[in-house]
């Protein structure tokens, strides 16, 4: 196996697999809460209960799974990338790569960007599934909706493009988060204090970029 494919694989584990836990927790609860709150807002007996499932499904796929997941990941992955690269910069590890004649940005940054663009869509699919499932558990456990109604709601009036849209968003967000954080980390100068500042800047900047891109993509594609 080539050096670079191994690097990308390592980063996939670091960035993707290590985020599965936090993404699962967040998305399950968000689905559950969406279900309960939608039911709370639907007081009219004229509206069929299946609507709850429709709302959970659509808000999950269109917005909650891709955007909330990526905001969470901008915290976890963004600080991890910026902190890691920043530390390598101030301890001269990046300089060491450069004097060996190794292109440090393609050695360090490219695998992170690629790994993010590979794993983020997978995490978003997982998040979508768990969020809808979280809604199911909360809805049936609290006797808000019967399993049959929930399932039939999920299946009614489904637009496959929303899945495509969610995946497009996840790839764009992955690119934004990984490049912004890498930039902040790679160009750290100073000491440990600056590494902390670079991490913070990476998280806030990529968070804002994700939300701005979210708005733009919604305008462009929907």
């Amino acid at each position, binding site marked *: 196996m080539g*050096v670079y494919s191994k690097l990308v694989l390592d980063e996939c584990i670091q960035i993707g697999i290590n985020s599965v836990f936090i993404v699962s927790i967040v998305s399950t609860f968000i689905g559950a809460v969406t279900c309960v709150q939608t039911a709370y807002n639907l007081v009219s007996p004229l509206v069929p209960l299946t609507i709850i499932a429709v709302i959970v499904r659509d808000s999950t796929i269109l917005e909650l799974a891709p955007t909330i997941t990526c905001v969470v990941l901008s915290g976890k992955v963004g600080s991890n990338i910026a902190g890691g690269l920043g*530390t*390598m910069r101030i*301890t*001269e*590890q990046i*300089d*060491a790569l*450069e*004097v*060996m*004649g*190794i292109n440090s940005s393609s050695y360090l940054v490219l695998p992170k960007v690629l790994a993010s663009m590979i794993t983020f869509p997978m995490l978003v699919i997982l998040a979508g599934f768990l969020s809808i499932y979280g809604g199911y558990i909360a809805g049936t456990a609290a006797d808000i909706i019967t399993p049959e109604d929930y399932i039939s709601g999920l299946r009614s009036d489904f637009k496959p493009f929303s899945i495509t849209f969610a995946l497009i968003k996840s790839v764009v967000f992955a690119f934004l988060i990984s490049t912004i954080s890498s930039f902040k980390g790679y160009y750290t100068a100073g000491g440990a204090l600056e590494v902390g500042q670079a991490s913070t800047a990476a998280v806030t900047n990529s968070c804002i970029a994700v939300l701005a891109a979210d708005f733009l993509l919604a305008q462009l594609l929907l």
Partner: protein
Amino acid sequence: MIEIKNIQKTFGERTILSGISGKFLPGDTSLIIGGSGTGKSVLLKCMIGLIKPEEGQVLYDGRDFLTGDEDTQKAIRREMGVLFQGGALFDSKTVLENVRFPLDMLTNMPTSEKMERAQFCLQRVGLENAADRMPSEISGGMKKRVGIARAIVMNPKYLFCDEPNSGLDPLTSIKIDELIREITDEFKITTVVITHDMNSMMEIGEKIMFLYQGKKMWEGTSSTITQSNVAELNEFIYANKLLRDTKA
């Protein structure tokens, strides 16, 4: 041979290096000495291309390093080994992986040969037992020694060491000095060592360059260093009481 000509470097308003020239010959261990903050590390970084000086030239056997084309630069980089002041070990890799890293990235050697070479270099710095530890689990002096092993693993033509023996006990320090001199003689390496250490100055300083506030104040050998009449240099070397007494 490495030749530097009129190196000039400023950071903002502050002039760090002003007009430094010199020659470093193959088979010689050349020392750069001087007080803390005088610009020794900056000079070294200019020589290895990590900092771009405003003015000046760095020639590796006649090849211009700073303005040369990319292939020339790459070729020169493959021929140099650098020990950074803090070791600069990759902290996600074990000691052995660190030493093997240049071989992995830059050569097509079979794995068994790489292992052998890496282990041989670790042995030379006396760390064959620490091969599987992480950099965070070894001491500062050990990091330096791993850094040296990594710097020599590719059989460099040019070797740069930024304070190879600061933070080492006297015995290990002497061993490192001997190692540097041995490999320099053996493979006719052009070696440039930055040091504060009077012992190494006397032991391995075949050629010594003294920097003071970014200027080259004196140049000579270890046998003539005690007879100079440069006030700043005398102050620097006779800071050590033992030496001051011997002079008096």
